[in-house]
C-alpha cells in the first residue's frame, strides 16, 4: 500500500530572492523509491490552507541523512508559506509520484540534461542517478542573467560536465540553452536529452532534438489536484496514430517523449 509520509523541515537555504531549497527529513521508503523526474505532492499546511497539495520535483536525495530536497520558486500562496516556514515544521507528502525519465539502454553516448530556470529542479537528482549508473552526463543550465544563475557547482559535484548559459551573456554561454543544445548535438555523440523548464524551452528542445534525430524526454508542469490520476485535471495532449489523446501529467508523466507532446494545447 502506498501511503502519506510526513516531512520535517530541517533546513532552508535561500538561493535567490524568490528561490529556496528546502531540505526535508522523511521516510526511507519514499527516498529509496524515488526515481529521477518523479515528484512529491506536498500538503504545505495541514492545519490551515491552501487546500490542495502542491507538486514539486525531487531535487536531490540523501539516503544517509534520510533527507529529500526541493528547489522552489516563490510564486503564490503555497510557496510563500513554504518560504516563511521554519525548521521544525511538518508537512505531508505523497510520493514518489509520476513516471520520471526513462532508463536508457546501455550506450557510450552521453545524456544531455537541459534545465531552464527553476526547471532545473529535478535534474540534480537525475544527474546523480546517471553518474551512479556510470553514464556520461552533460548539463546545460539556462538562466536569464548571472544574478539569477545558480546550481552550477551542485551539478559539477555530481561529476557531470556543466555549461552555464545566460540570456544576456553575463555568465557562461550567451543565449538560450537550446541554442547551445543545438551545437552540442551537432558536435557530440548524444544518446538522449532530458529537459525541464518553461513550455517555450521544452517546445524548442523538442524541435532541436527532432531535427537532430535524437530522442528527448521532457517534464511537463500542469495544474494538479489529486496528483495520482483520479481527477483528470492535469492532462497533456499526446500524439498517437489516430491523431491525439489526453494523458495525465501526474501518472503518465510528468515526463513525456518530446516528439509526442502537442504543445499548442499545453
Amino acid at each position, binding site marked *: *500500500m*502506498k*501511503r*502519506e509520509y510526513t516531512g520535517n523541515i530541517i533546513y532552508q537555504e535561500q538561493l535567490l530572492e524568490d528561490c529556496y531549497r528546502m531540505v526535508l527529513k522523511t521516510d526511507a521508503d519514499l527516498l529509496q523509491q524515488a526515481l529521477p523526474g518523479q515528484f512529491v505532492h506536498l*500538503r504545505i499546511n495541514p492545519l490551515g*490552507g*491552501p*487546500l*490542495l*497539495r502542491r507538486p514539486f520535483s525531487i531535487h536531490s536525495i540523501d539516503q544517509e541523512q534520510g533527507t529529500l530536497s526541493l528547489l522552489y520558486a516563490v510564486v503564490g500562496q503555497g510557496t510563500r508559506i513554504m518560504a516563511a516556514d521554519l525548521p521544525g515544521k511538518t508537512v505531508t507528502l*505523497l510520493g514518489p509520484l509520476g513516471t520520471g525519465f526513462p532508463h536508457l539502454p546501455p550506450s557510450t553516448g552521453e545524456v544531455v540534461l537541459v534545465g531552464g530556470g527553476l526547471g532545473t529542479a529535478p535534474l540534480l537528482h537525475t544527474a546523480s542517478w546517471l553518474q551512479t549508473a556510470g553514464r556520461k552526463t552533460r548539463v546545460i543550465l539556462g538562466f536569464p542573467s548571472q544574478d539569477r544563475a545558480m546550481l552550477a557547482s551542485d551539478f559539477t559535484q555530481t561529476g557531470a560536465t556543466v555549461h552555464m548559459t545566460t540570456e544576456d551573456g553575463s555568465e557562461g554561454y550567451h543565449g538560450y540553452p537550446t541554442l547551445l543544445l543545438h551545437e552540442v548535438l551537432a558536435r557530440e555523440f548524444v544518446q538522449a536529452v532530458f529537459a525541464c523548464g518553461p513550455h517555450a524551452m521544452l517546445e524548442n528542445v523538442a524541435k532541436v532534438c527532432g531535427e537532430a534525430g535524437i530522442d528527448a524526454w521532457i517534464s511537463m508542469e*500542469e*495544474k*494538479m*489536484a*489529486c*496528483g*495520482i*490520476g*483520479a*481527477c*483528470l*485535471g*492535469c*492532462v497533456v495532449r499526446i500524439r498517437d496514430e489516430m491523431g491525439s*489523446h*489526453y494523458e495525465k501529467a501526474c*501518472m503518465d508523466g510528468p515526463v513525456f517523449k518530446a516528439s509526442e507532446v502537442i504543445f499548442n*494545447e*499545453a
Partner: protein
Amino acid sequence: MKHKGLQVVIPGRRKGARSLMLGNPVIAASGTFGFGREYGDYLDLNQLGGIAVKGLTPEPREGNPIPRIVETPMGMLNSIGLQNPGLEGFIKEEMPFLRTYETAVIANISGNTVAEFTAMATRLESIPGIHGLEVNVSCPNIHRGGEVFATNPEMVRTITEEVVNVTTLPVIVKLSPNVTDIGLIAQSAEAGGADAVSLINTVLGMAIDIKTRQPVLKRVMGGLSGPAVKPIALRQVWQVYQVVKIPIIGMGGIMTAEDALEFLMAGAAAVSVGTGNFVNPTACIDVAVGINSYMEKHGLRRVSELTGVAHEQ
C-alpha cells in the same frame, strides 16, 4: 470500515427494484475517485461504503481543454468536461476490476437527452457488479444538458420517471445547488420515482487571471467544490430533508468525520467525499472510521439514528 451498525440501506421504492446496500455511510464522490483504481493503492477499496464512478456518457468524451482546475480559497473550480471512456469503455475496461471488490459501485450517468439517460440505464441494468445509478442532471461542465435539466423541475421529473422505468437498479438523482429552490427539484425527483437524491454537485463559479485578463478556465465557468461550499451544501441538505421522504446522500466539502456528522445530522442518510480525496487519499476511510468512533462514544447503534437529528428541537 464495515460492520452492521455502519450499514446504510437505500431501499428500492418500486416493485421489483433492488436496494442499495452500503457497507458504511461514506461513498467516494463521482469524478473525484476515477474508477477506484488509483486510490486502490492507498486504501482497501473493500473498506469503502460505495464508489460513485466518474461520470459516464454514451460515447467516450475527451473532456475540456486545459487548464481544467483552479484553486480558490478552501475550494477548487473544475472544468473537466466529463472526460470518460464512454459507457462501453467503462463496462469493458473498468468493470472487470471493480467487480473484484465487494463495495457498492454506483454508475454516475450524464446524458444530453432523455433518451441518452434511458439508453445508458437500460444497458447498465444487466451489468454484473453495478449496484446503483446516479443520474447526473447537474453537471455544469458540458455544453448542453447539465444545468438546463437540473434547474427545471419538470425535466428532472421526466428524466427520473424514464430512467426508473427501464431499470431495477436503485436510482439516485444528483441535484445541482445552482437553483433558487432545491427543495422543489428534490420533490420532482421524488415524484418521478427516485429512490434517493444526492447533493450537492458543484457550485457554478469562475476565476479570472489578472495577468492575461481572461477567465482562467477555457470554458469560463467551472464547478466549485471543497470546504468552501460546505455551508451551502449543508443548508441544501437541510432544506431537502424538510420536503422529501426519500434518503439523501449529502456531500460538499467533507474532509473529516466531523464534517460528515454535520451532514448526517442535517438529514443525510449517507455522505460522499469528493475533493477531500485529493487532499487526503484515505479520506473516505478516515471519515468512516471517525463516524464509527463517534457512534461508539455516543452509544449509537445505527447510522440512521443520526440522520436528521438536528431537525428535532
